[in-house]
């Protein structure tokens, strides 16, 4: 179970107040932490627990729930051949979190994409501009309240709606 995981034990010891939840599902460990502590937790995972590879940063929009957004980090340990998922909840009113670019350069583009698609403000990111959509685009397409057909079109009433 998740409680026996080496990384979870260490994180519980060091960040007792920051940890919100630890779960294991289908053999994958997920740690949910407060957004204020995200950089410390990621740094501890990188330097002390050898999760040296930041695979991905993305977000999920749980529209209708509070907090609305979840920023999801996938870390991998090349020496230990192991993965861990770190999540941090964000409220709709304060949609910002510290940028992981301070720790990994690979966070640069994936955070830009999360900003582009979800409107998440990564603080201290060196160049937080849109990456896939055009610079003058309005809205964030992967938000659940953004219509599939685009912002100024009547919703399609056929099979997909």
């Amino acid at each position, binding site marked *: 179970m998740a409680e026996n995981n080496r990384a979870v034990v260490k994180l519980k010891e060091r960040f007792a107040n920051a940890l919100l939840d630890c779960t294991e599902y289908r053999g994958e460990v997920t740690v949910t932490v407060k957004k204020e502590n995200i950089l410390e937790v990621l740094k501890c995972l990188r330097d002390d627990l050898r999760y040296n590879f930041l695979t991905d940063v993305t977000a999920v929009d749980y529209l209708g729930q509070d907090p609305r957004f979840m920023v999801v980090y996938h870390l991998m340990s090349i020496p230990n051949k192991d993965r861990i998922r770190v999540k941090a909840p964000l409220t709709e009113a304060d949609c910002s979190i510290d940028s992981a670019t301070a720790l990994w*350069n690979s966070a640069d583009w994936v955070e830009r994409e999360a900003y582009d698609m979800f409107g998440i403000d990564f603080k201290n990111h060196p160049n937080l501009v849109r990456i896939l959509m055009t610079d003058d685009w309005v809205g964030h397409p992967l938000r659940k309240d953004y219509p599939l057909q685009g912002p100024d079109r009547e919703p399609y009433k056929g099979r*997909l709606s």
Partner: protein
Amino acid sequence: MASEIMTLNMGPQHPSTHGVLRLVVELDGEVIQKITPHIGYLHRGIEKLSEHRTYHQALPLTDRMDYLAPMHNNLGYVLAVEKLLGIEVPERAETIRVIMAELTRLKSHLVWIACHALDIGAMTVFIYAFREREKIMELYEMVSGARMTSNYFRVGGLSRDLPAGFESAVQEILDTFPGHFDTYEGLLTKNTIWLQRTIGNGVISADDAIDFGISGPALRGSGVDFDLRRDLPYSGYEKYDFKVPVGENCDTFDRYKVRLVEMREAVKIIDQAMKRLKPGPILADAPQVCYPPKESVYNSIEGLIHHFKIASEGFPVPEGEVYQGVENPKGELGYYMVSDGGSKPYRMRVRPPSFVNLGAIEKMAKGSMIADLVAVIGTLDIVLGEIDR
């Protein structure tokens, strides 16, 4: 002497950018000072579209990301959904998936060597590699009916069994391809122009490669001994015996050598998989997920209703979230799937290897000449369909 920075726009339709990649390059004379990539010209919103389709309907979308390796994209997707569902795939289906995945690796690497060599000026290799790729396209057509967007895998197994004549066609590939690889090496490995253009070009150290999130052959070319097939195995790869090549000098030439060895190893894996192939079912015993056999659909009302229900409503997937990474020819392709218990993905995130690898282009090309940038783009082996999704 006072120098002035010149800004050069490369792309979006430049022949060496392999698709619609636009690079704004700042040059001091011929030396690169800064590269600003502009991407998104091919953005089709695949992640958004998948949230509005059932799990079976979202599968063909994945073909259209890395269109040089469609079956590998399918593989990551079906493995992720199967992990959410908690179902096991029969051994025959798993073995066929490995055969098709490795054929896909050959197919993708053949396009890489063809275009990479063409970019640097060696046209002969291009013609040869495309001749060989055609053999694999024919196999794609045999099993799935399509040459590029194959959509052959299904959640729970495969769409159909292998057709007659498949084994002999694969045997021909196994017999002839190592000789073709010798030809490519003969044309390139001791070619002075090739060596001068690739040795010492696009150097990125192992630590930097990890820092920039580079994966796949480009990571191994920088000397990091890591391959998801061996280290975090999926689809039964732990049963196969293969070498993981590693580079030493972290340059374009080492990445070229790594990919060539990978092609030879792929042939060995296909050979082992063909020997393991035993008759058996190709779909998991999970009637709530898998389509019934066609005989039952055409001849019984129960079969027809069953087929209709799965096609129209899809199947419910337990609530939860999983991440599945596969060793795509370009690097680590990851699917992060979130299910809310319904029949459509609540969120499908694709971690595209080309996208993350391209993020390191400035690091790799800064300080070199503009002509070397063409070699760096080639060695990164990017495909814009996957970068933009």
